[in-house]
């Protein structure tokens, strides 16, 4: 039994090294360790423990009680922590889960994220997503061209389009059952909508709504909701 386990662990380390440098990731993890524990005897602290996080449903640690509604909803909608979702979450937590309680501004350096993920990967027995490719192939949540991100939305057009959003999302920023979308940085809004449009994010209503918005319309909505406090 011990032998089998250690074989799996060493195999995992071998594969994990394809993600990034686990040794360097251990250093990066210091940014997380104020809230999160990982490894033998890891316990839930401010944040949930991170053993076996690969393959876990978002919001899925049974005895952890402080998940935001949005994170629980993402899990209920089918979001699973794998290399792609964790990478997106670490890059910008609020862009993936707008109401997350993880008070962390994100890691913008892709290599740093890859190293951290390689480190965390060691503590997951049954990862769902091992890349065949090199670490540089780790995808952001959604790849958008600089031109697209630079589109300046027409706020007035956004106001008209927003009426469709406001049937569910409240303009006063209420977060009851349905996430608040007011006051977001425009880039986060644009990325989120394109992630729904490309069906990377899983919610069926939002995939449908985003699916028929043009790039200009998404930019217009981002501009309008950004100015609503």
């Amino acid at each position: 039994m011990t032998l089998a386990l250690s074989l799996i662990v060493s195999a995992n380390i071998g594969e994990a090294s394809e993600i990034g440098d686990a040794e360097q990731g251990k250093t990066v993890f210091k940014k997380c360790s104020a809230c999160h524990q990982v490894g033998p005897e890891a316990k839930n602290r401010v944040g949930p423990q991170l053993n076996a996080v690969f393959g876990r449903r978002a919001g899925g640690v049974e005895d952890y009680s402080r998940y935001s509604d949005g994170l629980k909803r993402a899990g209920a909608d089918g979001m699973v922590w794998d290399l792609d979702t964790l990478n997106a979450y670490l890059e910008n937590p609020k862009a993936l889960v707008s109401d997350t309680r993880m008070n962390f501004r994100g890691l913008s350096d892709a290599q740093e994220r890859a190293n951290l993920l390689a480190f965390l990967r060691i503590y997951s027995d049954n990862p769902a997503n091992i890349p065949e490719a090199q670490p540089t192939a780790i995808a952001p949540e959604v790849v958008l061209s600089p031109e697209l991100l630079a589109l300046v939305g027409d706020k007035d057009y956004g106001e008209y389009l927003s009426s469709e959003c406001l049937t569910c999302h409240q303009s006063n920023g209420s977060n009851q059952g349905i996430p608040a979308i007011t006051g977001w940085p425009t880039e986060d809004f644009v990325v989120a909508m394109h992630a729904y449009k490309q069906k990377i994010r899983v919610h069926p209503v939002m995939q449908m709504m985003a699916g028929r918005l043009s790039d200009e319309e998404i930019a217009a909505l981002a501009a309008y909701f950004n100015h609503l406090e």
Partner: protein
Amino acid sequence: MKINRRHFIGATAAATLAAPLVNAGGHGRPKVVVIGGGAGGATAARYIAKDSKGEIDVTLVEPSRSYYTCFFSNLYIGGFRSLDSIAHSYGTLASAYGINVVHDWAIGIDRTARTVTLAGGSVLNYDRLILSPGIDFVEGAVPGWDVSTQNAMPHAYKAGSQTELLKAQIEAMPQGGTFAMVAPPNPYRCPPGPYERISMVAHKLKAENPTAKILLIDPKEKFSKQALFEEGWNTHYAGMVERIGPDFGGDNVSVDAGAMTVTIDGTVEKVDVCNVIPAMKAGKICEIAGITEGNWAPVNGHTMQSRLDENIHVLGDATSQGDMPKSGFSANSQAKVAAMAVRGALTGSKVFPAKFSNTCWSLIDTDNGVKVGATYEATDEKIAKVDGFVSQTGEDAALRKATYEESIGWYAGITSDMFG
């Protein structure tokens, strides 16, 4: 009906000559009158007043001071909501948006003079009229039932006292008694509504009267979210719900409110509660205005204008428009298109292409919500479906709970979008 209407127009035309329109000379703010303060009318009034920033004079005519939403009224029957929690007032529309809210019945429309007559005697002028009256029932649709028997056999398909009455009757059922529903034929308000109601009645009876039976008498072969509801009934309310479809005479039903019997294809059933939801048609004011064809008011999807009068826009359940279901969400969506078109016509504001959407959530049991939705666009022929989705059978409990919580968020969202 047509003869009556001609008489009526003749009568008001004379009255109008005596009192010429203030607006006819082109001075004064353009006037919009909205009839019906539900998901279509309240939303349209609010958006026109809000977005025109005082340039348009908006009057909303609605008989009720407290509006009970039909959506979520089944949850009141199931014990998941209080009646107060689905009641809304028009105070904010008047105070924060400057809408002239008139609690009265509209009884006459003169399309030539562009006036609306109210039961209280007032006459309102309009440049554009928005009709969002909801539904009325087709006379004689269920033999033995008419509005005079609606207290013995409630429809509870306009929320409020009827809903309260139906709930009280369910609570007074003898142990092991029978609840019957006569479901409506297509098209009708809220396609999943009767089946969500069956779920909510079953939820209530399971707790309070577990040997009771539910008899669902249905003229339709198929119904909305059928697989989801049937899965839910089998899982949560096994053996309680019996559905009699058209194969077994579900389309050949009469009732006797005095004897409390339902006759299905010649077989008489004694029941304890009978919820009769008859065939529907556009709210009567559409017929009075002379803008209906058959039971409904046809509209142009680009603007929601009546096909028979371009000065009148019709919203929601009363319309025939194409692919959208008759729902509060649809009416709210259509109201925004109409509001934009009305502002464009009266103030020259920019008009964008019409877009529509709808999502209907239904509750099957505690924390077990499902949904169906679609997006739509206007073509010259109709409002046409673009894309859609529906919840799947066998979904896990966490997803169903999240769907229910989402519906609560939607309720808060749409009611604040309607009433401010």
